[in-house]
C-alpha cells in the first residue's frame, strides 16, 4: 500500500513536473546553439519562468518519493512501473499542451499499461 502511494506520487508529480518544464522550454524556444555558454544561457533564461519552478518543485517531490520507494523495492520493479508516465504523459500532453496524440500512440500507451500490470503481478 505504501509503495503504491509512493509510486503514484512518482508518476503523477513527475509527469506534472515534466509538463510544466515542457511549457517553459517551449516558451524559451528551439535550442539551436549547443556551445556550453549558449546552453547555460538557455538554462538561465528558463529559470526565470514560473512554469520552470513549478515543474522543478513537482519533479523534486517525485524524486524524493522515488528514493523512498527504492529503499523498499527493487530498481527492476520500480522503474518499469514508472512507465505509467507514458499514459499520464499522453493524457497530459493532449490536455495541457495541445499536442495531437494519434490512435497509434494511444494503442502503445495501452500496451504499456498491460506491461505494467504484468510486472506488478510478477513481482513475487
Amino acid at each position, binding site marked *: 500500500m505504501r509503495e503504491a502511494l509512493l509510486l503514484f506520487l512518482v508518476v503523477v508529480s513527475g509527469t506534472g513536473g515534466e509538463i510544466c518544464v515542457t511549457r517553459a522550454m517551449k516558451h524559451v524556444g528551439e535550442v539551436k546553439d549547443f556551445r556550453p555558454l549558449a546552453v547555460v544561457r538557455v538554462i538561465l533564461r528558463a529559470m526565470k519562468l514560473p512554469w520552470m519552478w513549478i515543474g522543478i518543485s513537482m519533479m523534486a517531490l517525485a524524486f524524493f518519493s522515488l528514493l523512498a520507494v527504492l529503499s523498499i523495492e*527493487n*530498481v527492476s520493479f520500480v*522503474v518499469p512501473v514508472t512507465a505509467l508516465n507514458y499514459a499520464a*504523459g499522453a493524457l497530459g500532453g493532449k490536455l495541457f499542451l495541445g499536442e495531437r496524440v494519434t490512435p497509434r500512440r494511444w494503442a502503445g500507451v495501452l*500496451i504499456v499499461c498491460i*506491461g505494467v500490470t504484468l510486472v506488478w503481478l510478477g513481482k513475487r
Partner: protein
Amino acid sequence: MTSTAGLHFKTYCMLLIMIVFAPLGNVMLGKGMKNIGAAATWAPSELPHVASRVFMSGYIWLGVASLLTFFVAYMLILSWADFSYVQPASSVALLVVALLGYFYLGERISRLHWAGIVVICLGVFVVGNTPPRTTEVH
C-alpha cells in the same frame, strides 16, 4: 539546423544521452537507498537522520549526477520536440534498467516480470515512430 534530417540527428543524439544516463542514475540511487535501508521504518522523527545518510552516500550523488546529465539533455530536446514523443522514445531506458538490475545488482526477476518489461518496451515501440513535432512553431 532546421532541416528535417538535422532535427532528427540532434534529436537522436539527445535521446542517446538520455538512454545511457537515466538508467545509470536510477541504478545508483537504488544501490544507495538499499544500503541505507527500508523506508518502512521512517518515522517523522527519524527523517533528519535518514536524510543525512542519503546525502552522505556516494552512490546517491553519482545517481544524482547521472540524472542531472539526463535532465539537461531532456530540457534541450523538449525545446523542439513534443513531450508525448520524447517521453516514449526515451523509454528504451526501462530495458537497460532491468538488465542493470539483474546483472549488476543481482535482483531476482520472475518470468512474468520479464514478460511485463518486454510488453512495456513493445508498447513503447508502437508509440515510437511518430513525428517529433505535431504543434506549430511560433
